[in-house]
Structure formats: C-alpha cells, structure tokens
C-alpha cells in the first residue's frame, strides 16, 4: 500500500546519505560546525524512534529522555567501572534501554492521550531523581568524567570527523530501519492506530503488539544515541535527561514534520542550529522554539516537511484525495 500522505521520493534518501557522507569535506576545518553536525545526528536518531510511536502511531510519549539517559548511563558505567570495550557497552546500552522500554510498555501503553503523556513524563522525572540520589553508583549531580573513546581494533574514533561518521552511520541505519517499517504493513497498522485504536483493532491490527514494539524500538534508538553522545563528550551528568529533553524531541518532530523521516531531520537541523544562528541572542531561543512549536501544531499539523510536500510534490489528484479527510486526526 502506498499512502500518498507519507510518500517520500527515493532520491531524497540518496541525497540525504550523500550530503551526510560528504559534509565533513566542507566543514571539517570548523570545529563548531562539526559539533553541530554530530548533535544533529544524535537528535535525529532519537527522533526517528519517536516518529514511529508519536509521529505515525499518534501516541504522545514523553519518555524519550529517560531512554536516552538509560542508554547513556549504562554505557558510561560499564565502560568506566567494568572497563568494557566501548562498542560492547553501546550494545549493552541498546539492550538495557530496550528491555526497560519493553517492561514499561505493558502497563503504560494502555494509557492514551494526555494520560500517556503525563505517565511517561513522571517516569522520566523519577529516573532523574534515582540517578541524582544514588551517588555511589552514578556520581550524583556531578556525574562521571573521562569516559573512554570508542575504538575498533587499532582504530580510534578520537577526532570529530571520525566520530561524525560513527554517529551518522547509526543515524542512517536507524532511518533505514524506520523507513522500512513505515512502508510495511506495520506502518499501515500504526497509521490506523493513530486514526482510531478501536477501528484498527477491529480491522485485525494487533494494537498492543504494534505499539509495544515501536515503543521498544524507539527506546533502543534513543538509548544508543544517548550512549554515543556521552562518549563524544566523554562526560555524563543527570541534567541532560530531564523532561525538557523529551519535550525538545516532540518539538523537533512537530516543527519538522512528525510523519516523515525527512521531517525529523529538518526539525533536528532547525532546533540545533537556531541557538547558534541567534549568536548573542540565544537567551531567546526557548521563546522562539515555543512559538515555532505552537505555530506548527496550530497551523501545520505535519510540520515544515508536510507543508513543503503539499506545495511542491502533490498532484491535483492527491490533494483531492486528502481534502476528503481531516488530516491525521
């Protein structure tokens, strides 16, 4: 089934890969730009997971910061306290966030709409408290410093350019997996769930299983992204895992466009570069983000990507098709 609302031309994926691969040629001399490009890759990975459950499935999960933190702390602790090779601790981060996501999914995904949002928000805040208070394990508010750099045999990812390729390999892998899910029956099922859970269930969609596995996959992507980020900084502290991060991810998807992977990418670029572009006025960036977010949810339900798609690519026929139904309710 090819749903026109989620149609994505193939050349765009190729273009994205090509840009991602060649970007360091242009900007490797500018450490600030490299840093931004790595950050975009990290945020993009977290948002890809969120776009499945929230963007396509219509479930407002604000637990993304929690899984990002679980992955980050799992990897940081295993690589420093047990001296595990960093790539193994990355794998452990994926497993830990995935398992916790799976355990959490059973009770929490029965909740809908605002109840789900509040419960996932509460889960994240509880987790931050646990990290802060268990000082002997996590280092409390000061965190852990000197996290090791990932190495593969004799090759060490110790320069920003190398780390950039590591992060973007993972981001594009996650995007590829998500892309295939969106195209498959599961993606169609998720869109049905977003329209009406009861309707989807009566058409044979296994609502609980679909929601659970998308939630788990989102947790894994966020967990690995979190681990990648702290080993890039070589430092971890609980401040980055509060509700604000989860909300920032929702903002990225709402601004960029929550039903497409290109939208997640656009949103990640906007949210990371805007504070830098504002230069001396970056104190205003929370205000600007909230205005963009409000404008997007009120006027552009499918974000910038959706608006661009409907004005550039749509044929008259598809516009007629879409005007028949309220979009993504």
């Amino acid at each position, binding site marked *: 089934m090819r749903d026109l609302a989620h149609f994505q031309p193939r050349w765009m994926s190729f273009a994205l890969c090509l840009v991602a691969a060649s970007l360091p040629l242009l900007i490797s001399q500018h450490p600030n730009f490299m840093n931004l490009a790595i950050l975009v890759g990290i945020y993009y990975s977290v948002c890809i997971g969120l776009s499945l459950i929230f963007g396509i499935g219509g479930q407002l999960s604000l637990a993304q910061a929690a899984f990002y933190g679980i992955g980050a702390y799992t990897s940081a602790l295993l690589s420093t306290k047990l001296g595990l090779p960093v790539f193994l601790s990355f794998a452990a981060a994926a497993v830990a966030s995935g398992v916790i996501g799976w355990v959490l999914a059973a009770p929490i995904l029965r909740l809908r709409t605002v109840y789900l949002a509040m419960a996932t928000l509460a889960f994240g805040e509880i987790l931050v408290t646990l990290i802060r208070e268990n000082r002997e394990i996590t280092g409390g508010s000061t965190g852990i410093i000197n996290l090791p750099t990932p190495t593969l045999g004799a090759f060490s990812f110790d320069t920003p350019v190398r780390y950039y390729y590591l992060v973007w390999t993972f981001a594009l892998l996650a995007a590829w997996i998500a892309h295939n899910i969106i195209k498959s029956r599961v993606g169609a099922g998720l869109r049905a769930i977003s329209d009406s859970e009861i309707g989807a269930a009566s058409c044979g969609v296994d609502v609980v299983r679909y929601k659970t596995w998308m939630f788990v996959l989102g947790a894994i992507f966020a967990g690995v992204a979190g681990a990648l980020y702290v080993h890039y900084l070589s430092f971890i502290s609980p401040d980055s895992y509060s509700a604000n991060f989860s*909300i920032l991810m929702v903002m990225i998807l709402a601004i960029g466009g929550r039903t497409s992977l290109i939208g997640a990418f656009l949103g990640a670029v906007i949210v990371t570069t805007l504070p830098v572009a504002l230069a001396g006025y970056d104190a205003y960036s929370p205000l600007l983000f909230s205005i963009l977010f409000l404008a997007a*949810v009120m006027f552009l339900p499918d974000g910038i990507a959706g608006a661009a798609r409907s004005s550039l690519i749509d044929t008259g026929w598809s516009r007629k098709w879409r005007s028949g139904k309220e979009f993504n309710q």
Partner: protein
Amino acid sequence: MRPPTNSAEEQPMSSSTILQFLFSGLTSGALYAFVALGFSVTYSSSGVVNFAQGQFVMLGGLVAASLNTLFDLPVLPSMLLGTAAAALTGLVVGRVFILPILKLGEFRLILVTLGISLFLEAIALLIWGTDPWALPSLLDLEPFRIGGASLSSDSVLIIVMTFTTLAGFTAFVRYTRWGRAMRATSIDRTVASSLGVNVPLTIVLAFVLSAVFGGVAGALLTPLIATGSQVGMLMTLKGFTAAVLGGISSPMGAVIGGFLLGVIEAFAGGFISSAYQNAIGLAILILLLMFRPEGLFTLTTRRA
C-alpha cells in the same frame, strides 16, 4: 514540594513530628488542590487537560513577588494583581488558542496546551530569570503551636482559602446562571448549545476560572516557598496527579486528591527520604493511572 515548615527530621518520631509532617502535607496539599481544581474546571467544560495549568501558579507567584519587590506594593494588592495577571493569561489562552481549535481533536489540543505551557515558561525565564522570587508574609502572625508542632499563618491561610474556594465554586456552579451553563456544557456541549447556552463563552470562562485558581495558589504560596520561573511543569504534574487521585471530573474530588497527595508526600518524605518526596508523588501517578484511572472516590465511569 519540599515541606515549607521547619521539619524536625533529627528528632525521634514523636507525635509532634508526625503532626509537623501532617501540617506541611496539608500546606502543599492545598496548593495541589488549587491546581487540581483548575484541571477539573477546564476538563469538565471543554474536555481539555490543560498542560499549562501549572504555569498559572508560576505566573501568580512571580507577578505578585516582583510587584512587591520592585515597586514596593503592599502584599495584598500584589497578590491580587498576581492573580489578575494569571486570570488575564487564562482569558487569552482560552479565547485565542483553545476555542479556535476545539474541534481539531484531542491529540492536537494536548500539543497546543503543551506549547502554551512552554511559551509561558520561556517568557517567564526572560523576565524573571532562573532565581526564585519571594514575598513577605501576608498576615505576619506568630506561628501557631499545636501539640509541639508549628503551623505558620500563611499555611493556615492557604488551607482555609482552599476550602473557601471550593465552597464558593460549588455554590457558583449550583446556584448561578453561569454555573448552570457550565454544568450543562460539561454534560453535553451540543445539547447545551441548542438550549441557548453560550458554549464558547462558558469554555473561556472555565479557562479564566482555572487560571484564577492557579494564580491564587501561586500568590499564596510565594510567602512560604519562593517561586521560580521553572516550577510550572512540576506543578502541572502534581496537580494532575491530585486530580486523577480524587477523580478529575469532580471539584470536591480534586480538593480531596490534592490534600491526600500532599499528606502522602509529606509522610513519605519524612519517613522514607526527603530526596525521593517528588518521585514518590510521581510514582503514585503512574500506579494510579495503571490501576484506577477514574480516581479513588469516583463511582462513575471515565469519559471515553
């Protein structure tokens, strides 16, 4: 919320210590009750769970505190103007943001209220910065000594105000024209509209009322705990927990839920660990949503 009164943590558990926990629990409970009441009003009239509810507390407190600190306004006028500022914000939120998109469906509505919440927080951050602002005591009486525990006059005031507000609101809903319109809207918007109720106006009124509740709570709280620009989201979570605890569609339930949550948190903080006080309140929310989402005291079923 940390207990605002000086807790006697070092002493052995005596009746006075327990009484002290109870007092601080009732004080923060009064605050939660106000926020929960706000949730209840907007939810029953418009079906919207307003993510920005906690930001009204922040606005009421910060406007009152800054009027008093910067312009030397006496405490009572500062508090009233703080509440008025919250009410005005509630009017704008209801009229400009909620009304036009009310028919767009629950999902978009939640995101819009989340956006409003972020917008208010971002503005407050620019105006007031991250430091908390304090307000002097309104009554400025000696703390009451009851059974070895002390209860400040500000605590008594906020607790008394909670019950006064509940009584006033109940009377308003029961006996006035506007209250009847509100009840009709909460039962069935379409039928109410066909019987001549001005539904949009009623919904805006509900948002103003909910903002007043939040603003009053923030203004009354600031003498006890200094208010910072970032307390809103936690207030939203706590108030929502209280509302779910008591049953979100009943004002009485919201107030009971508020006090219950405050007391549970204070005792959990006192007996287990004060560091986990907030986390315990939030764990209650998760457990409650899992096992009894319709509230502890409600017999009716939840709206689908």
